[in-house]
Structures are given as structure tokens and as C-alpha cells.
């Protein structure tokens, strides 16, 4: 098989899902002729038609709200939100309708909706185009939240999400869309399972989405100093695969969570809480977070410093080892 970029892998995954199930629809702004602003849906409207790949009016509440109705009618909508910062006009529909319908109907109405959101920064964009809003969704009962970090996962995870009968908010690290190409794994890995992407024994680095590549680079740099960092790609933010995390922490005794999202009340906080509940006696140091700061996403001229980077991750490694 040939190597693909993440954008192309998602495109192939979407294509496969549409071929496999005629109920799968794609809807969003500019997803048709343009193929999406990142070209993830490139060519799909041409091949599947305007009634399966729908350029919607410019209204996110409309996109999500009509997806709810389509789901009630038996369809499997895949909604594209153009950028992270533009999900909020649709937030009410996601939190109050998509997330709750199954529960309110006592299990009679399912919401097999996938909400794709390009997220994260590092592309020099203007405001609202670089945010990491995953915690809002993970905090909402009834939603599942995943993030892919590489082309193969992108290909398989998007298909698994579309096939899921639960609604899934699917985060795509936009700065990785056209980064490295890689081959696709022949088989999918379970959707809600974390994966060790680099084994090590000194400190565990836990990351997802765009920060997996950063964690791997940091581990490579640390190896030059004789530090063996284990890197876990979380993949699923909600539900969390705690057994995999705990297993690693029991071996290394040290955990650092890395995310672009702001520091407080985020995914890192949840993981830290659970690790101290579940592996207290294995910990050699407090769980640390390397994250964005508790500010709005900064002007792009400062984003590379504001975002977690190798320097900040390695500082945290030293801090962890210093306990």
C-alpha cells in the first residue's frame, strides 16, 4: 500500500464509510466542490453526488441540528465544522440534543453522528482557528471524544467513529494534515484504546492529536541524554483507557500529560486525578501537565512559545525526575 498524508487518509476513510453504508452523509460548509478548506472531502461530492455530500448553508447550529433530525430518520451524518473556534454556534445542539437524545428516549433513539473538528494551532492562523476545545465535549455525558494523531489511525478511526451508534466528536490535528506520509495498518486498533507508540522506562509522556508527534520528538531528544521516555498516544479522550495508562505508570512511576488546550480544568487534570486515585503508590512524582496557558490562544507570532514544545516537555521531564 502507498503512504498517505493524514488528510488523504481521512479522505479514503470517509470514502470507504460511504461505500460501505448508503446512510452515511457528509455535511458542512465548503465540503463539496472545494473539498473542504483542508481538502479532506476532496472529490467525494463528485463521486457520491450532492445529496450525499452536502454543502450546507453557513450555520453550525443548523448543521448539527439537522444532523439530529437525519439521525432520527435513520441516517448517519458526518458533520464537518470548518475550524475549532466555529463549533460554538452549534454547541447547544451538540450538548443539549446530540448528547442527550439516546438517554431521554430511554435508548429508543440513537445518534450515530460524527462531528469532525480540525483542531489545535501551530499554523500561523488568525484567532478562532487554532483552538483546542476537547474538554468541553469530554465534560458532556453522552458524547464520546477521540483524536487521531497519524494517517493510519485517521483512516481507521474515522470509519470506526462513523460506524459507532454513539455520537462521536472527532478531533483532527490540523497541523498534521499535510505533514508526514505513512502507510496504513492492515487492521484497525480498538477505537477507545490508548497505544504505546514508543516504549521507555523512565517517564511516561501521555499525548493525543498534534502533541503525539511533539512527545515523540521530545523522547528522541531525551534519548540522547540517556533518558528513556515512554510515549502513549491516548487516541480516545472520552472514554479514557485508564488500564493502559496505569500499566505504564506502574512501570515508570512518572507521568506527564501534554496537550495544547489550556492548563486548567482540562484532560490533563482528569488524568492526573484518576492516576492518583488508581496508582497512588506507584507514583514517584506528581503528575505534571505541559499545556497551553490559561489565556485566549495568543497572536500567532507567539504561538510556538505558548504551545507545548520540546523545551517545555524536557523541562517537565527533569522536574519529574527531580522528585
Amino acid at each position, binding site marked *: 500500500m502507498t503512504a498517505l498524508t493524514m488528510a488523504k487518509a481521512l479522505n479514503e476513510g470517509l470514502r470507504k464509510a460511504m461505500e460501505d453504508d448508503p446512510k452515511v452523509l457528509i455535511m458542512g*460548509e*465548503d465540503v*463539496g*466542490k*472545494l*473539498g473542504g*478548506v483542508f481538502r479532506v472531502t476532496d472529490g467525494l461530492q463528485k463521486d457520491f*453526488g*450532492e*445529496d450525499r455530500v*452536502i*454543502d*450546507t*448553508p*453557513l*450555520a453550525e*447550529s*443548523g448543521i448539527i441540528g439537522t444532523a439530529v433530525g437525519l439521525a432520527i430518520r435513520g441516517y448517519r451524518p458526518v458533520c464537518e465544522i470548518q475550524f475549532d*473556534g*466555529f463549533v*460554538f*454556534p452549534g454547541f447547544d445542539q451538540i450538548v443539549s440534543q446530540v448528547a442527550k437524545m439516546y438517554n431521554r428516549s430511554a435508548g429508543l433513539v440513537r445518534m450515530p453522528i460524527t462531528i469532525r473538528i480540525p483542531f489545535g494551532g501551530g499554523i*500561523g*492562523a*488568525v*484567532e*478562532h482557528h487554532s483552538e483546542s476545545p476537547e474538554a468541553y465535549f469530554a465534560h458532556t455525558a453522552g458524547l464520546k471524544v477521540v483524536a487521531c494523531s497519524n494517517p493510519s489511525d485517521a483512516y481507521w478511526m474515522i470509519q470506526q467513529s462513523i460506524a459507532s451508534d454513539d455520537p462521536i466528536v472527532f478531533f483532527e490535528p490540523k497541523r498534521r494534515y499535510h505533514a508526514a506520509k505513512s502507510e496504513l495498518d492492515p487492521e484497525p486498533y480498538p477505537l477507545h484504546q490508548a497505544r504505546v507508540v514508543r516504549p521507555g522506562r523512565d517517564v511516561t509522556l501521555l499525548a493525543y492529536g498534534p502533541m503525539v508527534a511533539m512527545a515523540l520528538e521530545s523522547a528522541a531528544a531525551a534519548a540522547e541524554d540517556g533518558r528513556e521516555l515512554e510515549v502513549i498516544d491516548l487516541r480516545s479522550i472520552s472514554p479514557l483507557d485508564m488500564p493502559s495508562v496505569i500499566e505504564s505508570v506502574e512501570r515508570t512511576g512518572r507521568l506527564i500529560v501534554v496537550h495544547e488546550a489550556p*492548563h486548567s480544568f482540562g484532560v490533563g487534570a482528569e488524568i492526573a486525578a484518576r492516576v492518583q486515585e488508581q496508582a497512588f503508590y506507584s507514583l514517584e512524582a506528581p503528575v505534571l501537565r505541559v499545556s497551553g*496557558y*490559561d*489565556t*485566549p490562544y*495568543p*497572536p*500567532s*507570532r*507567539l*504561538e510556538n*512559545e*505558548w504551545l507545548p514544545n520540546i*523545551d*517545555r516537555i524536557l*523541562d517537565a521531564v527533569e522536574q519529574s525526575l527531580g522528585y
Partner: protein
Amino acid sequence: MTEHVRAVQPEPDMVQLLTPEGQRVEHPDYPLDITDEQIAALYRDLVLVRRIDTEAIALQRQGELGLWASLLGQEAAQVGAGRALRKHDMAFPTYREHGVAWCRDVDPMSLLGLFRGTNLGGFNPHEHNFNMYTIVIGAQTLHATGYAMGVVRDGAVGTGDPERDTAVLAFFGDGASSQGDVNEAFVFAAAGNLPVVFFCQNNQWAISEPVTTQSRVPLYKRASGFGFPGMRIDGNDVLASLAVTRKALDDARNAQGPTLIEAFTYRMNPHTTNDDTRRYRLGSEAETWKLKDPIARVKAYLLREAKISADFFTDLEQESKRLAEHIRAGCRALPDPTPESVFEHVHVDMPNELREQRDDFAAFVSSIEEVSA
């Protein structure tokens, strides 16, 4: 679904006071008393805002700006509307209203920080009664409506005192007309009979989506369903834009309530410097619109009908060059944000924990600067 319903209404009448050939025409509802000197002044605005746009695009190409949203083709709509405002009126732009900013005396440099990535807005809306740019589509129409609610509560409408009566002008695009926020703004404005004018630049495209994706009826007709007047103007005609906006703002100030103006125009350039129009529209479309250029028609009028000296045009050329130089030099000189600045103004009262983060961040940035120095 495959058989998409396209706009079913015939092309409606639109207000035009200056034809593409540069002929003045009268409209019974919009008499415009204007001297040739005043038309020449509008011409100057049009030429200079196009120059700002051209320079910004060039700066983006040179890597000095991260992005630029071009106004090419929309100069007349913006300058007409901008010049219809009085000093104490308030305007709420999208991210493309560089021409309105110009008319409000906002230094073009104040607009560039957002696109260069040195700030997130960064100018005082009260200084020129021009709000910061809003990127989240449609949100500003509600802000304009709320501002108009405040104007009413302050007793600043319908007094007959031109120094006191105030109107609000809200800009948005054809794509934005689909957003809930915009429709809610219409509802609030109608319910409160508010002094707000909704100015929609229908430039035919919302990135790759034609206006027919948003609406089956001409957009100005939406107003009647909300209970206020709507009209369409030739958006490439600066005189029509001036006259119709002036009338709508007068109505607003006189407590006659809101108006929707649809300026029928065309986005000549890609959506932003990141966009590629070849994927979704034919180049011939722009060629057709070129014949309706907003600047050429004013020039034709001035050369043929008005006694404007040749010096005016050469002086303007010089002024345009100086403005370009100001933008080029000023853009490169825009100060980079300091690490501390990211933490300033997050809260009025900075929490201690944020202060600690600020100090950590500043120390981190200076440590890497030392290493690289």
C-alpha cells in the same frame, strides 16, 4: 436534493445612481444632492482603499502578513456606507471592511496586527466609533443590535437634534445571512424598533458556496418577513450606497426603526489569500464583473462630466504611493507581542495563579532567547 432549487425570483430592481459607464441617473426615492468635488472625494477614498488592499496582499505574499481578506470589487459598497455615517454613529464590521475603517479614520496599520499575528484586534472601538473586526460569522450583528438598544435607552434617537440622534450600522455577508445570530438580530431589531441598519454585502460567494446555497429569495426580501424595509442597491455604485445608507441611517436616527440593505456586488479576489477559486467558480464570472468596476465608473464620470483638474489625479497618485509606503514600512515595524502581553487583559483583575503562569512563561521565553542568542 440533487435538483437544487436555484434562486427563483427574477432579478429585482436595484437602486443605481451611477451606471457602469459613468452616467448619473436619478432615483425618485433617493435624490442625491452632491457636488462634483464631493464625488471626487469619494473617488479618492475608492482609490486609496484599493491601494491599502493591494499593499496588504503583497505583504501577505512576502510573508509579512499571515492572511488577508481582500475587499477588491467591494470598495463602492463600503465607501458609500462608510461616508453615510455621522461621527457619533457606530459601525460593526466583519473582517473585510477595510474601506469602512478608512472612512472612520482608522489607520490601516491598526487593522494589520490581526492579520500579521501581533495582536487579536487591539484598537479602541470608541476612538473612531468602529468596532474591532469579528471573525465568527454573524456575531457582530447582535452586538450592533444591542448597542442600538443602548442608544434608545440613552434617549439618543428621534430627538431631532442631529448632534444627538445616533444610528448603528452592522455589516455582514451573504453567507452570514444563514446564521442564527443574524436572524436573531433581525428579530430583536424589529421587536425594539431599533436604530440599526443591516448592511449585507452580497458578494455572491461565501468561500466556495454561491449565494443560492443560502437563499431562494433575494436577500433584501428577507427583511419584509421580519417587519422592516429591505432594498437592494448596485453595490458597485458608490453613490447608490451613499444615498441609500444615508436614508436608512436617517430613518434609524428618527426612530423609524431598522432597514436591511443588500449591496449587490462581487468578491473579485479569492475569499482570503489562502483560497483557490479555480475549484469552484469560473474566471469568466470575474471578467463580467470587471465591466462593472466600482472605480472605473466614477473616473469616467469625473473625466467626462466634472471640471476636475488633471492635477487631482496626479496628486492622488502621489498620495496613494505615500500611503503604500506608510503601510509597507508600518507593517514591518509592528511590534511583536511580548510574552507578558498574552496574559494582560485576560481579566480586569488578574488572578494570582495567572500571574504565576505569566512569570513562568516570560522566564521560559527569555531562556530560549538566551540560548539562541
